[in-house]
Structure formats: C-alpha cells, structure tokens
C-alpha cells in the first residue's frame, strides 16, 4: 500500500484529472440534502457532509434500471442494452464502501449479475474518512473504523492542511500515477496524524450494537413475542430498506406500449405486503411483524449464515430517517437479551 499526501489546495486538480477520463460522482448539496450526483467541475462537491441521505448503492444498483428492451407481444424480440461506463465515486464513506463488498456476495456467485458486476469493475472508489461521525453511527460495532481503507481503491483522510492518501488497489495506483505530480510521499509524522485523526473519530462514536453470538441468539427467538412488540409502531413505509446501503431486494416489471417496451428492475422493499403475496392470494408474511422480523433476520442471521458477514455497516441512516424512531441498534441489542 502506498502512503502519500495530497495538499487540500490540489484536490480540485485531482478532480479535474479524474474528469478527463471518467464520469465523476460525489457528494452534492441541494436544499439541505446531500446526495451522490454526477459533477462536471470540482466546485460542485460539498465536502463538509456527514453522509449522503441516499446511499451510493444507488450508483451500483439503480433505483430503476433497464435490463433489456424488447418488441412486445407474442411475436416479440429482445434488444440488449449497453452496460455502464467508467466512473469514479469520490468521497464515499468507508461504511458505504463496505456495503459494496457485502453486496458482492449476492450479485456474484452461481449466477453473476452483469449489471452490478460491470458497474463494480468500472468504478473507482475514492473514499473519504469520517472525521466527525454522527450520533447514530456505529461502524465500530462490526470491528470497522470511520477511516477503514480496505473497501476502497484510495482513501483520503483529513489531516489538517493535507489529505493523507492510502492507495489500496491497482485501480487506485493508476489514479495516483496519472496525477503523480500532485502527490508527495507521506512522512512518519503524516502517518501519525492519520492515526490520531482516526482515533479521534472512533472516540466520537458513542453508540454500540451488541452482536456477539447474534446468529445463535436469533435462532432461538424466531417465534418470540418480542417481534410483535418491535413491529408494533412500524408503519411499513420501507424508508429503512430504500436507504439501507445493503438492502438489495428488487422487483422486475415489464413496461411497454404496443410497439416497444423494456424489462425494468426497480428497488423493492420487504416491508410491502405485496412483496411476497402469491398469485393465489396466499401470503407467507401477512403481518407487519413477519416482515420486520424478516428484515432483521436477513441482516443478522440469514446473511451471516450464507456469507459469513452481518449485512449491516452501521451507517445509521435507518435510525436517522425512520419516521417512528425504530432504532436498529436497540432492536438487535435487545433481541440478544431476550430469554428464549
């Protein structure tokens, strides 16, 4: 791993260099909301942000995405679509970058998902460490850090007048090579500054989710009334799922006129009763308690069983934005204390 520094004054030069060959996405603020959007010049970036309201998974798994086009009907034909172009996501937080690594398990495997995988391959992740984590941040509950470098190609950490630059992957090396003049080798003092910044950020994280032996604990309380109590105030709005960086469930629908159409995939959410209803009218998850429980189990029991990783990165979005204050830190911590 190369360790370098980049003067804050040179950041815009780096972005301009990236814009020459790639589409660049970064945090952009409009109407008090920060979202990852395509930028055309460095000044559009808004770097004084906690995190984006919608996670950057939206750039890997589009909210709506055309799988292919077709001529509809019983004499139909299929027309494939072009896959994605090269892009850079600048300013992604380590937790959101981890969510991509978690989603890889779903979209790779027996059946590779070409839409997700192509985007992953063609995307350079330039992360920005969190220097002031939010009230509901809890990435440290999963042994990660607000300055974790392992999920990105390049990680920048604010160390005062400079960014401390960790170059992790070959893709990252290509970037620092192309903009070689802008980077200087890091000194020991720079490295210490990064460590101090990371420690300061970790110390600011005040909340902890207890996930010790959570898979085994959940195995024993599936039928417990605890889940009814948790689901009692849930409105079923699905905000938690749409804004979760690891929620990946989707629907596939045909949209068509008489002469042309497309098969589209759209984000779906497991809080919606239609999500599981059979054509016969039978629904295996008819009550909200079934659906809330399924969401928690998917992340803290099913996912670890299948892929050996908890499908939560501790970004805190679902806590910040739940209209009825359901708090996944409390839910999981308390679930671990329920007597079977």
């Amino acid at each position, binding site marked *: 791993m190369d360790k370098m520094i980049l003067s804050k004054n040179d950041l815009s030069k780096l972005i301009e260099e990236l814009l020459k060959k790639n589409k660049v996405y970064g945090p952009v603020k409009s109407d008090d909301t920060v979202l990852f959007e395509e930028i055309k010049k460095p000044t559009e970036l808004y770097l004084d942000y906690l995190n984006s309201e919608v996670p950057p998974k939206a750039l890997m798994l589009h909210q709506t995405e055309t*799988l*292919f086009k*077709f*001529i*509809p*009907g*019983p*004499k*139909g*034909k*299929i027309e*494939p679509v072009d896959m994605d172009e090269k892009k850079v996501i600048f300013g992604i937080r380590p937790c959101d970058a981890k969510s991509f690594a978690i989603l890889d398990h*779903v*979209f790779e*495997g*027996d*059946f*590779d*998902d*070409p*839409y997700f995988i192509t985007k992953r391959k063609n995307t350079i992740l330039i992360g920005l460490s969190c220097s002031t984590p939010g009230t509901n941040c809890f990435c440290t509950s999963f042994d990660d850090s607000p300055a974790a470098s392992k999920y990105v190609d390049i990680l920048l950490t604010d160390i005062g007048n400079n960014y401390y630059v960790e170059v992790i992957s070959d893709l990252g090396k290509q970037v620092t090579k192309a903009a070689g003049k802008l980077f200087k080798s890091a000194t020991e003092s720079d490295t210490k500054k990064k460590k101090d910044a990371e420690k300061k950020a970790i110390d600011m994280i005040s909340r902890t989710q207890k996930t010790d032996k959570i898979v085994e604990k959940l*195995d024993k309380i*599936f*039928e417990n009334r605890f889940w009814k109590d948790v689901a009692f105030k849930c409105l079923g709005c699905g905000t938690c799922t749409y804004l979760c960086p690891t929620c*990946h*469930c*989707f*629907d*596939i*629908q*045909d949209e*068509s006129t008489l002469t042309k*159409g497309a*098969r589209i*995939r759209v984000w*779906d959410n*497991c809080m919606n009763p239609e*999500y*599981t*209803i*059979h*054509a*016969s009218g*039978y629904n*295996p*998850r008819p009550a909200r308690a*079934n659906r809330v429980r*399924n969401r928690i*189990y*998917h992340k803290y*029991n*099913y*996912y670890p*069983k*299948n892929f050996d990783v908890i499908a939560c990165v501790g970004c805190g979005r679902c806590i910040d934005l739940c209209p009825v204050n359901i708090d996944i830190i409390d839910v999981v911590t308390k679930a671990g204390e329920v007597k079977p």
Partner: protein
Amino acid sequence: MKENPYEPWLATVQDVREEVGGQRPIKTFKLKFNDNKIQDNFSYIPGQCAMVSLLGMGECFFAISSSPTKKGYIEVSVMKLGKVTTALHELETGDTVGVRGPYGNNFDVNGWKGKNLIFIGGGIGQAPLRSLIQYVVDKRKDYGKLDIIYGARTSKDISYKEEFADLEKRKDVNVHLSIDVKEDGWKKFVGFVPDNLLKVKPSPKNSIAITCGPPIMIKFVIQNLEKLGFTEDQIFTTLEMRMKCGIGKCGRCNIGNLYVCKDGPVFSYKQLKNIYGER
C-alpha cells in the same frame, strides 16, 4: 447457461393443451427454443424450473413439467391466476415467449435408482411430479415399484387425463386417482388425497415418497406418511414462492436463509423440519 441470466431466450409455442377448464383453468404449453443449439444444450433434471415470460406482460417461475428424456421441447403447465398467467393462457401455437433457466435443485434421480417411488399429487401440484414420472417411466428398469396417487376436486379438474389413462394401462405402474366429492360414474376413490394415501398404504421399505399440491394437502400427506412408517428423509416435496429473479438475488422467496428458487424448490421433510421461516 446464459451470460446475462436476466435475458431470456426466445421460444415458440408448439402446442397448447387444455388440461382443466372452468374457473381455474390449466394449460400445458409445449415450447421449443428458436435457436436449435440452445434447444439441444438446455439440459435439466426433473424438479428444476424455468422463468417463462411474455414480453410486455412479465415473467413467472414454473416447474418444467416435461422430462429431459423427451427431446426437442420443454413443457410448462400453467394455472390461470394472475396477470402473467392470464396473458399466457391467451397464447396460440406459433407465438413467441421468453424462457430462461433451468433453475433450482432437482429430484435425486440417480440416488433413487432401485427404490420404490410413491408420487402423491394434488391439483396443479402434479406439474413437477409429472416431469419425474415421465423420467422414471422412460427409464423404467432403473426404479422399483411405482405408485402414483393423484386427486382433484372433481373429475373435470384432473390434469393430464390422457397420460393417466396411458399409465393405467401399464402393468408396471400403479395409478390411484381420486376426486374430493362423489360423482355419478366415478368408480375410483372419493375423498381427499391424504385419505387415499392411507387406503393405498404403500410400504416405506426401500421407498421414497414425493408430494406436491396445496399446502394443506402436503401437511396431511406428510402426517399420514409418518403414520405409515416413512421417515423424514424418505419424504420430499417441492415448494413455491413469489419470485422475480429466479437466481437468488431479488430477495423475496426465502424460507429462513434458503431461497426456494436457488436452494429449492425440492426439499426433504428432514430439511424443512430443521429450517424455520415463514412459508
């Protein structure tokens, strides 16, 4: 397997056969891939499924109801229930559909060689069993005694009537049909499938029981199989769920940590007892 698993191959409807009429009609569609190479390379094992779509209407996940021993086509049997199945029921010979697959696991056709097989089906649940029945009948000497128990609400609701008639003529297959309610002229069993199973009373010795039908039927069939001495690893069923992708990504068809589309649809009763989750 296709490079892009979401993109179906085109296939042409070769034949449409009405199995059952009335309120919940069932039709069997005989499909041939437009590309001969794909038709030749589309290899599957009984129990596996395919996504069949009508472009512009959407896709549904169906058991392949024909056997891979029948070359040159695949068949799916479709009950008219929702938007896509209603559109499929309008199809005529020569029309185009999209097909992708095969998906899911399969019946253990090799492991079950030499064993007696008992098929217990109800209604449209016969579709996946039909694939396996065709397969073992085509490879008759590989398997032991074959008992086929099948029931429907009325005699009109019996699927695959001609095939059952052909099977009844064979000396090496025992067919036990039933209807739920008494009808003039019906000389076979009247009553529910689980009761017919008790009457047929197959021996569990060196046997495998495979059941598919409405959930309530499966529940009592399993109870009665246990009464007859079948152990939980001698009982198999195939499950269904609402599905969109068919390849374990869209999220909705899970029972616990297993996806019915990918880890199923065939499960032993032993497996089902040990996983929890809504179904």
